[in-house]
């Protein structure tokens, strides 16, 4: 399949604010505009990748991502994932995926109690086969920004160990001369992103769609997204 034949869907919730950036990034990199689907829809048209974008779905009420995770469209996303469909959540999208239980753990308030908006150095860990990391080198480092108040990844010790043992840690924050100290939020084991046991569902806090050209400070997000899109169209 060519890249432009890949069908990408971006879910939109009330309060999503990275849906358009993600759409622009995917259109630029894949050559085809993704479909946007509203949270009240209860089914998805045939799609190769569903992206849950960043933002403040439902105003972050109750807990970040909690209400979005129970919305009609997420039922359809859960079905898509159960059939082995690829799902990617960024920032609030990651929080939503954790609230659905598709991925283990939870994102709690940043250890510094402050909203953090800055570049981070993201290192590829990987391990288990996954379209989200297979096209990247283990140890490869990318400059990708974060922007969040609840990005502090937490899980039970058993879950953390399982993630390590199964190679489900996709990305870690790493120290870098360019962006300074690594972990921006206190996340356990410096976790920036994880994948499901079958590698088909990935959630990450950093925003690759905000780093798609040197004019934005980094084009490393384009590298990450292109690698995903290529792996999914292979």
């Amino acid at each position: 399949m060519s890249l432009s034949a890949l069908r990408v869907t971006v879910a939109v919730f009330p309060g999503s604010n990275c849906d358009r950036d993600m759409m622009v990034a995917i259109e630029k990199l894949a050559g085809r505009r993704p479909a946007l689907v509203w949270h009240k829809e209860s089914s998805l048209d045939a799609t190769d990748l569903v992206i849950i974008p960043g933002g403040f779905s439902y105003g972050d009420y109750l807990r970040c991502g909690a209400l979005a995770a129970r919305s009609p469209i997420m039922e359809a996303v859960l079905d898509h994932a159960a059939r082995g469909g690829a799902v990617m959540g960024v920032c609030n999208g990651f929080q939503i995926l954790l609230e659905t239980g598709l991925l283990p753990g939870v994102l709690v308030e940043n250890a510094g109690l402050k909203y953090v908006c800055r570049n981070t150095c993201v290192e590829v860990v990987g391990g288990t086969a996954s379209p989200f990391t297979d096209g990247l080198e283990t140890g490869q480092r990318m400059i990708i920004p974060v922007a969040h108040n609840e990005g502090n990844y937490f899980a039970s010790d058993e879950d953390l160990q399982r993630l390590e043992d199964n190679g489900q840690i996709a990305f870690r924050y790493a120290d870098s001369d360019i962006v300074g100290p690594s972990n921006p939020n206190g996340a356990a084991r410096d976790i920036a992103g994880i994948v499901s046991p079958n590698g088909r569902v990935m959630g990450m806090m950093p925003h690759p769609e905000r780093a798609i050209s040197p004019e934005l400070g980094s084009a490393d997000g384009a590298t990450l997204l292109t690698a995903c899109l290529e792996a999914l169209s292979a």
Partner: protein
Amino acid sequence: MQVIVNISLKYGVLDPQGRAIGRSLTDLGFQEVGDVRVGKRITLEIDETDASRARQRVARMCETLLANTVIEDYEIEIDEGEDA
């Protein structure tokens, strides 16, 4: 019937907000303050007269949505005096 749900962080889960509040209280001269934990209280008005049925339903609500049991515990309080 009114049902109150108290949601608290599980023991062992870091509570940065509670810690900041504790530090401020100490700074304000309340030296006796040790650990501080911040929780949530949700008040539900429920169309139900049987307390044990209400408790069962609200427990389901907690498990389904109100609490994230990875990090949170919940307690259900029912004021029987409020029965219709």
